[in-house]
């Protein structure tokens, strides 16, 4: 069953469908949360919160017809950063539209895409990898990264952007 059909079943109240969503995406949501928080119990809390949003409001996601894996990944990261920095949520959790031409992509296509991204990350220069990691998985501002690395603010911005562009190119190649 593809994501669209799964979400439609979730919207009709099927707990079996929600269990299937859990089987498909809980690991990646948990791993992203763990990468940010470094604490398994906190990461599991974030995972539960994110997936329960799919259960509570599946119709909002069905209407947006985005890429479910991408949506869950972004929300998992954002929630984890919120917890890490003990701040109020950045975005209303159900209102982060992420329309993608590869809507509801096949699992195999998604896996292939992520493998490609992993490949380019291995070759990403350390001066790009570091600031990208600090900004995305530690939630540091560019000012904080500049202070921590001793690099000029503009350089930090440029390196984060360059790292992200490398990932984008890998996704479209």
């Amino acid at each position, binding site marked *: 069953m593809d994501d669209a059909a799964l979400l439609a079943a979730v919207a009709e109240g099927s707990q079996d469908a929600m269990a299937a969503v859990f089987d498909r995406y809980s690991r*990646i949501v948990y*791993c992203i949360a763990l990468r940010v928080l470094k604490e398994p119990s906190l990461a599991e809390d974030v995972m539960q919160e994110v997936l329960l949003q799919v259960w509570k409001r599946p119709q*909002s996601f069905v209407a947006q017809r985005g890429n479910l894996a991408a949506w869950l990944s972004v929300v*998992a990261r954002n929630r984890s950063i919120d917890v890490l920095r003990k701040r*109020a*949520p950045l975005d209303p959790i159900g*209102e982060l539209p*992420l329309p993608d031409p590869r809507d509801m992509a096949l699992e195999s296509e998604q896996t292939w895409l992520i493998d490609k991204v992993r490949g380019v990350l291995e070759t990403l220069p350390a001066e790009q990898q570091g600031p990208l990691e600090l900004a995305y998985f530690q939630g540091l501002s560019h000012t904080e990264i500049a202070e921590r690395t001793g690099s000029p603010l503009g350089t930090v*911005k440029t390196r984060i952007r360059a790292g992200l562009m490398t990932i984008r190119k890998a996704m479209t190649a």
Partner: protein
Amino acid sequence: MTDILHIADADLTLYAMGSLAPEEMEQARLHLLGCDKCREELRQSTLALAAYAQATPDAGLPEGAQDRFMMRLQQTPQMQAAAEAEPVKTAVAPVQTKPGQTKQGQAEPGQTTQARQPVVAAVAEPPSLWTTLFGTGAWSLALAAAMAVLLLVVGIDDMRNRAAIGPLQGMAQRGEADTAQLNQLMELLTSSQAKRVALHPGPVTAPPPDARVTYAARTGKLLLTASNLHPLPAGKVYELWILQPGGKKPLPAGTFAPDSTGNATMILADAPTNLAVQGFGVTVENDGGSDTPTLPIVLSGS
């Protein structure tokens, strides 16, 4: 990064991560409201960041994680689609209300939870009252009555609005109101085509500045009421801007200055007509106004 130029790519990447300073996040959010190009760039960056997140090495789930999740699932009710819509915040007098004339303000991507929930409401139309009041020739009575009707029609639901309209009501009672201007005001406020937009400040301070704009695109009539505005230095005024979709240049829509209590009212009878309006913003400009907004945008709403 302005409403005329596009957001720098590096800044857009940081916006996608939520890593810009709060005031920069707000400026970018406002720009994105009306810029398809930057929204597309943001979408691409967000998808790339999602892929970056998904490339995280697999660490496996903790023991019993699925059981714990399913237990919480069984205790968690689903929300119905209809229940998600918040009630529309209007208080139009029952006799003037027409079903289906209100709609809810909508959140956009990247919006914060503290964010604004602008109320956009079409104003009900009472032609019989209008004809009755202004067909008598009893101007002082009519003006006072008109202001009373105005208060009902607009659906004033908070004390700030009452404070903003108060000076106009006093003018009517003293017979000092300009009849032509009041006619235009009434026409605007009773038009079924008019929209009301609540403008809010960025970081909240107490008491926060607040402004409301009512604009009829067809006739080019516009009313702004504001309260709790910060006093301005000599030679400075507030300027209202009409924000257009598609990254078009914001249009100036008049300048105004607060009185000693921070209230301001501005009525324009000749605002630009037939515009697709994305929202409104207020900046501080030199006396006489400007052709292009000077950041920061101190109040905004969409």
